[in-house]
Structures are given as C-alpha cells and as structure tokens.
C-alpha cells in the first residue's frame, strides 16, 4: 500500500510559521465492533514505542478512556504525558488490525490563561501496534510511504 506525505503549516511558539512534510496518513479506528465515523491523521513515527491517539475521539467510539490501563510517555524535553491503554482496531487502507494503543488527553494542552491550544495535530503510529504489523519504507524525495503487511 502506498500513501502520500502530508504537508502541514507548523505554528511555532515564537509566532513564526513554516510548512513541513510529514509521513502522516489517514487511519480509521474501531472499538468493540464500532467504527469511528471519520478518519483521523496519524504520524508514522519509528521513534515512538507505542501508538498514541487523542482521547477526545474516544467518546465517538463509545470508549471509556480512564477505564484503560494507565500509562505514560515522554518526548524530548517534555514532562510525562499520561494516557490509558485500550485494545482497538486501527484501519489502514481499508485493512483493520489489532492495536493496543494509548489514548491521551495530553496531546493537546490548553494554556490556563489564554485558552490557546498547543500540541499535536495527529495521532502517532509507533513500534508496538504498528511497526509490528508493517514494513515501512519512507521516500521523502517522492513524498511517498510504502507499507507492506507482515504476515
């Protein structure tokens, strides 16, 4: 399966903006027979140990976020972000596969004074839950990603 890269407008803390190409693909999510009635962008990130999705989407799936197993993750220079693990189906190119993913309300943080949002515009597809299902080839020069299912 082949997918294009996605170009984003990245808004930086100093107010500057720039465009960036990222290996972001659209995925579907399913939980206990229910399928999210929308697609959702997710970054293919080999540096992430796990798959992490916005908890705000859980309501649309009928998923009780905080009923999941608590977990946490860290990025460069950031504190711990809490999440809750759930067994869901991720749908890529129309093909569903099982994924134990973290749902987190911490991917978007709201500034306590201004109310402005800061954080990720997409979910994250990491090693466990995604790279154990696909061999991934990034081709930035052609702005394409190739996914080959692992049997």
């Amino acid at each position: 399966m082949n997918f294009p890269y996605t170009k984003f407008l990245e808004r930086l803390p100093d107010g500057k903006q720039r465009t960036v190409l990222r290996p972001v693909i659209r995925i579907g999510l399913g939980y206990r027979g229910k399928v999210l009635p929308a697609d959702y962008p997710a970054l293919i990130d080999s540096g992430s140990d796990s798959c992490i999705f916005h908890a705000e989407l859980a309501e649309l799936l009928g998923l009780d976020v905080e009923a999941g197993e608590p977990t946490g993750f860290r990025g460069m220079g950031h504190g711990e972000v809490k999440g809750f693990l759930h067994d869901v189906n991720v749908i890529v190119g129309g093909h569903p596969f099982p994924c134990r993913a973290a749902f987190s309300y911490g991917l978007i943080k709201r500034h306590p004074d201004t109310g402005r949002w800061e954080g990720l515009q997409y979910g994250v597809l990491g090693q466990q839950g995604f790279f154990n299902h696909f061999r991934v080839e990034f081709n930035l020069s052609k702005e394409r990603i190739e996914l080959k299912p692992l049997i």
Partner: protein
Amino acid sequence: MSNEDLRTVDLSELLRGYTDCWVALSADQSRVVASGRTPKEALLQAQQQGEPKPVLMPVPSVSGPYEGA
C-alpha cells in the same frame, strides 16, 4: 487513499485560518467542511453538511517543532 491518489496532501493553506478547534475535512481533504470545540461538534456539523465520513483533526495555536512523542 492507498494506491489511489498519491499526490501530497497539502493542509498548510487549508488550515491557515483555523486555530484552537477541531476541524472536519472533506473525505478528499481538499476543504474544511466544519469546525467545533470538540471532535463531536465538528463531526455532527460535517454530517449535517452532507459529509458522512470526514477527516477529523485538532488545530492548535502552537503545533511545533515536533521532536518525537
């Protein structure tokens, strides 16, 4: 979209006028169909606009630089 349309998806201009909200994009990701404070609000508005399965995503005021999750 796999093997169908391999043109780079360009959201950079599309989302320039949106911040601090969830947006619902058309299925081909060529236009913003609806926006709201929650994904549910954006989804319901998109469905009312005749878009049965949009692409839902948040648009924060600050979104980078990304250095790993």
